[in-house]
C-alpha cells in the first residue's frame, strides 16, 4: 500500500544550512529518495518548476525570501506536498506556516526516522485501489482519479486536502476526532498536534464550501471533531 514508485521519490530540500542540507541528502538517499538542495528561498520556485519534486522539505527561516512566502508561492502553482522544517515550536509560527499551505511540519531537532516517516506518509499512493466514487454534499469524488467535481466543475485540492475529504466522505455517518484524522490522513501513530487538523479543515472548507462561514460539506461536531455533511445537504 505504501509502495514508493520510482518517480515518487524526488524531494526538494530548501534549506540555507549547507551541513544540514548535506546530511539530509545523505539520509534521504540512503532511504531511496532522490533529493536535491536549494540553498535560498529566491531560487525555490524555479527549482520546483524545473525539478518537479514529489515533495518539498522547506525550512521556515531562510535568507532572502522567507519560508512562509516560498510556501505560499509554491501553493499558488502546485499542490505538491510541503513539509516544513521549523526550529520554532511556538504556536504562532507553526500556525502561520500551516496556513501558508504546508501539509505537515517537523520541529528541529528531529530524528531521521521521524522525518522519513513523515515523508512516506505524504508520498503514499493509492494506485492499487479499485475505482470508487463518493458523494459528499453536492460534490462527486473520484477516488482513483483524484478529482473532485461540483456539478461537473472540477475543484483543485492538494493531495492532503483530497485525502482529508475522502477520509470523511467514506464514512459519512461517523464523527472523526482530530486524533483519528491525524492517524488516518497524516499517518501519526501517536496523537500529535491537533492544530494540523484545524488549519487544514479551514483550508479545505475555503475550497469546497459554498459558504465557508456556514459549512455544509465538513461539519464541526462541537467538542468531538468533524464529520461529513450528507449527500443531500448543501
Amino acid at each position, binding site marked *: 500500500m505504501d509502495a514508493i514508485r520510482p518517480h515518487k521519490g524526488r524531494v526538494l530540500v530548501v534549506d540555507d544550512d549547507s551541513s544540514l542540507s548535506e546530511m*539530509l541528502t545523505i539520509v534521504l538517499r540512503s532511504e531511496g529518495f532522490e533529493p536535491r538542495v536549494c540553498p535560498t528561498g529566491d531560487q525555490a520556485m524555479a527549482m520546483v518548476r524545473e525539478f518537479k519534486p514529489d515533495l518539498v522539505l522547506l525550512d521556515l527561516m531562510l535568507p532572502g525570501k522567507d519560508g512562509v512566502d516560498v510556501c505560499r508561492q509554491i501553493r499558488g502553482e502546485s499542490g505538491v506536498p510541503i513539509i516544513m522544517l521549523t526550529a520554532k515550536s511556538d504556536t504562532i509560527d507553526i500556525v502561520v506556516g500551516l496556513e501558508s499551505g504546508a501539509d505537515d511540519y517537523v520541529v*528541529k*531537532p528531529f530524528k*531521521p*526516522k521521524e522525518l522519513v516517516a513523515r515523508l512516506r506518509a505524504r508520498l503514499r499512493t493509492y494506485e492499487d485501489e479499485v475505482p470508487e466514487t463518493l458523494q459528499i454534499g453536492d460534490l462527486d469524488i473520484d477516488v482513483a482519479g483524484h478529482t473532485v467535481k461540483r456539478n461537473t466543475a472540477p475543484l483543485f485540492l492538494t493531495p492532503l486536502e483530497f485525502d482529508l475529504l475522502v477520509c470523511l466522505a467514506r464514512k459519512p455517518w461517523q464523527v472523526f476526532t482530530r486524533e483519528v484524522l491525524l492517524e488516518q490522513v497524516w499517518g501519526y501513530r501517536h496523537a500529535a498536534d491537533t492544530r494540523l487538523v484545524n488549519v487544514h479543515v479551514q483550508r479545505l472548507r475555503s475550497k469546497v464550501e459554498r459558504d465557508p462561514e456556514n459549512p455544509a460539506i465538513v461539519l464541526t461536531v462541537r467538542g468531538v471533531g468533524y464529520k461529513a455533511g450528507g449527500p443531500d445537504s448543501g
Partner: protein
Amino acid sequence: MEAADQVPPATPRVAPRTVASGAGRWLAASWRVLTSPVRAVLGWWRRSIQARVVIGVLTLSAVLAFLAGWVLLTQVTNGLLDGQRKSALTQAAQGFAAAQSRLDQEDVVAESDPGAPLNQLLDDLAPHDEASGDYTVIVIGPLADVLANQPQTWAPRLSSQLDVASSVPAELVTQIQSAPGSYWAYTGLHRTPADSSHPALVVGSQVTVTSQAISYGLLYVFPLAEQQQTLSVVERGLLGAGAVLIVLLSTIAWLVTRQVVTPVRLARRIAERLAAGRLEERMHVRGQDDIARLGQSFNQMAGGLQRQIRQLEELSRVQRRFVADVSHELRTPLTTVRMASDLLYEAREDFDAPTARSAELLQDELNRFEGLLTDLLEISRFDAGAAALELSDVDLRASVRHVLEANSPIARRRGSSFVVTIPDEPAVVQADARRVERIVRNLVVNALQYGEGSDVEITVAAQPDSVCVVVRDHGVGLKPGEETLVFSRFWRADPARTRTRGGTGLGLSIAVEDTLLHGGVLDAWGRPGRGAAFRLVLPRRVGAPLTPAPLVVAEEPPAPVGAPYARLDRDPGIEPR
C-alpha cells in the same frame, strides 16, 4: 444514574434545615431592606468628602445662625421694652401725682363713699383720644381688703374692659400695698378670664384718700402689642436671614469642595484606568494652583510608570526574541549532529568495539542534550512570561492513559508496573492539553526514575470544582523539607547517584510552571525509604480559586481529595518577578 438515586433519601434530611435557614434568610432579607437606606447614606458619608464638608458646614452654620439670632433678638427686645417702660413710668408718675392731689382735695373728704371720686378720677386719667396713648387705668382697693381677698369690697374700677384678677400679678399688688412708690411688672392681659394672653406693662402705686386714711391701688396698664408686632417682624427677618445664610454657606462649601474634589475624583478615575493598563491616560492640567500641580505630578508619575513598563516590555520582547533566535541557531546544527549520530548509531555493528561504544555514547548523550535544550528553552519561555495557554476541554483520564501508554516501555525496563485508579465519569478540566500531558509525564517519569523498580500508583479523582492526579512511588522517597526543594531547578535528591538516572533536572520545575499557569497546585509528599507522592490539582476552569486547605504532615500521603501535602506557590529557585 447513581447520583439520581441518591437524591430522594437526602432530601427529607436536608429539608428542615432548609426551612430554618429559609426563615433566617427572610429575616436577614427584611433587615437588609430596612437598613438599606441607612447603609446607603452611611456609605455615601464615608465615601464622599464633599458630603462630609457640606453637612459639617450646614450643621455649624445652623448653630452659628441660631446663636447670633438669639443674641440679636434679646438685644432688640430689651431696647424696645426699655424705651416703652421709661415713657410708661413717666406717664404713670404724672398720673399718680395728679390722682393723689385730686384725692387730697376737700370735696373728696366730704364724701363718705369713695366710689364717686374714684370714678371721677378714672375718667380724668383714662386716655381721652388716640394721641394721649393707649392704656387702661385701674383702681383697686381698699388695699387692705384686696390683700384679705374680699372681692365684694375691692371690686376694681376700670377705665376699659379687663379681667383684673388674671391680668394683674399678685406680687405687684403686694409690693404696692407694702410701701408707697411706683412699681412695675410685665404681664399678660386677659379681657375675660378665658381670653388669650396679650403682653403688657403694668405700673402701679398707692393712692391714699387722706381724709379717710384708706389706700387704693392705682394701676396703669400699657399694652405691648405694638412692640410684640415689631419683635415678631424682627424674629421672622432673623429666621429668614439665618436660613439664607445656612443655604448660602452650604452652597459655598459645596462649590469650594467641588473645586478640590473634582480633580481628585478625576485623578482617581485616571489612576484606575492606568491600573487597568491604559498607560497613555493623563490628567487634564489647567492653571498653576495646587490642584494643577497635583495633576502635573500625577502625570509625571504616570509617564514614569509608562516608561518603566514599556522598558520592561521591551526587555521581555528582546529576551523572547533572543530565546527564539538561540533556539533556532542551536537547533539547526543540533539537527545535523543528531542525524549524523543516528547514522553512526545504526551502523555501529560495522565498527570496532571502541568506535561502536563511542557511537552509542554519542547517541545517548545527544538525547540528553536535546532534552536539556528543550527544557531550558521552555523554562526561559516561562521566565520571559511568554508561555501562553491553549485552552480546550481536557479529560485528565485520557491524558493519563496517553502518558502511561508512552512510558510503559521505560516502566518495563525499570521493572515497575503502573497501578491505575481512574474514575468512570469523565474528569474534564479547561486546560492546555499539551501542558497537562507534560505535567503528568514529568510526574510519571520522575516516579519511574526514583521508584527503584517499585510499582507506580496513579490515581485520578474528580471533585466538583477541581480534578486531581496523584502519582505515588515506593522508592527512595524524600527527606523532611525536600517536599518543596524537589521542584527547584536542577535540584537532585542524591547528587552522587543521579547521573545514572538521566533526566534533565528541570522536569518538575516545568511541571510546577505549567500547573501555576493553569491556576492549579502541584505539591509533594515523601518519607525516606517509603517513597514519594506528587499531587496535581487543577481547577475545572482556569484561574478559578481552589479552596485552600491546611498543611498536613502525615505518615501516609493523604487521600487525593483534601488537604495539600505542602503548599508551593512558586519555584523557590526563581526570584519573584
